């Protein structure tokens, strides 16, 4: 088995060859899937734990606080304690709630990010689903999550839940458009929807640098719209605590509440990962023109680290938004999308087409 931190293709092939040797073909496929599934589950659990902690710390520092400090060194074990607490809590179900849908909703919310995360290219060769319509697939499955939110709101038999769910529905319907269009702006340049192709097209520079002004505008629109799509502040009207208790997950407790919580953070990761892949070159190292020495140093840093560094930077930006801006009202939110983001996006798409036709990008 030849393990190479810069290129996982050989490693993955040798693992699958080895599986094929010791097992029948069908069993090998199933075992392979199971291994990948377990890796992703572990990854998501770790991601949730660490992101919740990081978010609390980042939020605290933005607000001149210290955040969790008591459990473990600098509060590092705080989220573990929270998870244990949530597991031991009673999973309450409201009287007159639609029990089947109520339970189903928590799983649907969790399934969407699980489907989407499979398409994320982590490093060269570390890519589970490389469809030729990768971007389309990710945007499609990540909006399944809203079905879960709508179901949760409807089945809870609670007016706050229903209002929250309806807001969330309106939000997704409008902002999905902007996310798609801003990604399309870059697709004009790459000429492919395949995520690995998109990453490869950035080996000589990231699209945010190569794509001129329209790429920067597209990135800004993408980050705004996808923050809205993930129901995060300043667009967290679906769970606006001060108005509608906790919105769609008011009636959820214990581990089912944890699912909603976890899915928010996994969604956040997926947004940052897609943003990284499309605008910041995915796992591609930073290359500057002909500075060979600099480029070699950058190449030395493994792609996995590049990927997670970029994702972390984007996550930080999104957290910065959340803890700075006040929450929008529902009409303001729709105005922002339909009167500002969408027209700007269409103009930007035109601009990008012109830039691309005339070869003004690099």
């Amino acid at each position, binding site marked *: 088995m030849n393990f190479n931190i810069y290129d996982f293709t050989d490693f993955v092939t040798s693992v699958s060859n080895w599986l094929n040797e010791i097992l029948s073909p069908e069993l090998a496929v199933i075992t392979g899937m199971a291994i990948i599934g377990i890796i992703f589950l572990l990854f998501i659990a770790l991601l949730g734990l660490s992101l919740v902690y990081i978010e609390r710390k980042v939020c605290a520092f*933005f607000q001149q606080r*210290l955040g969790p400090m008591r459990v473990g060194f600098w509060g590092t074990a705080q989220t573990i304690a929270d998870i244990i607490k949530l597991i031991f809590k009673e999973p309450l179900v409201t009287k007159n709630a639609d029990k089947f849908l109520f339970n189903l909703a928590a799983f649907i919310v969790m399934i969407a990010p699980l489907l989407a995360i499979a398409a994320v290219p982590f490093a060269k060769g570390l890519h589970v689903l490389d469809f030729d319509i990768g971007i389309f697939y990710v945007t499609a499955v990540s909006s399944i999550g809203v079905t879960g939110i709508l179901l949760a709101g409807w089945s809870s038999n609670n007016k706050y839940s229903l209002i929250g769910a309806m807001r969330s529905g309106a939000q997704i319907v409008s902002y999905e458009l902007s996310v798609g269009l801003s990604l399309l702006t870059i697709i004009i340049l790459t000429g492919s929807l395949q995520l690995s192709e998109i990453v490869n097209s950035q080996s000589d520079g990231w699209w945010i640098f190569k794509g001129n002004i329209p790429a920067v505008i597209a990135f800004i629109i993408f980050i705004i719209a996808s923050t809205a799509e993930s129901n995060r502040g300043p667009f967290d009207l679906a769970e606006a605590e001060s108005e509608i208790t906790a919105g769609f997950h008011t009636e959820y407790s214990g581990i089912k509440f944890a699912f909603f919580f976890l899915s928010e953070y996994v969604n956040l990761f997926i947004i940052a990962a897609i943003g990284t892949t499309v605008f910041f070159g995915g796992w591609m190292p930073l290359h500057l023109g002909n500075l060979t020495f600099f480029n070699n140093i950058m190449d030395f840093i493994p792609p996995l680290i590049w990927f997670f560094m970029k994702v972390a930077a984007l996550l930080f930006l999104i957290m910065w938004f959340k803890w700075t801006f006040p929450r929008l009202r529902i009409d303001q939110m729709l105005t922002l999308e339909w009167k500002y983001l969408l027209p*700007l996006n269409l103009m930007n798409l035109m601009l990008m087409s012109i830039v691309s036709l005339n070869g003004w990008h690099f």
Partner: protein
Amino acid sequence: MIKSIIKYFSEIFRGVKSLLTGMKITGYYFTHPKEIITQQYPENRETLKMFDRFRGEVVLIHDENNEHKCTGCSACEIACPNGTIEIISDKAIDPETGKPKKVIDKFVYHLSMCTFCNLCIIACPTDAIKMAQTFEHSVFDRTKLTKVLNKPGSKIMAGIKE
């Protein structure tokens, strides 16, 4: 037409500018951990300093000779909206003039009833009482919250008149 287009874009720019201003402020806080105001209380008990206007409890100021400035006028008792203060006064003979004079026997303060509104401090004509910055007031027995503020054997400072 042109005007409305200009207005549209200037609105966008103004919006973005005000958002960036907000992000600059939070970014400043994030990069300057010195600005953090959280006190890690039980750990920093020794060094913790409460801010100047913190109202912990009412105390009667005594100087090094165990003398205070309270004349027993009951102005604080009347000013208190909660009946927290009880002035139990006594009659004594003024050594200078030889006439009977009112002095305090007990300045009773029920911490459990105090809302720390500061009204008694304002009402006192001789500035005999002030707010202390202590705040660790929890006790196991409620009666411990009723305090006599004048120290045993203390007397009024010379020259303090009602």
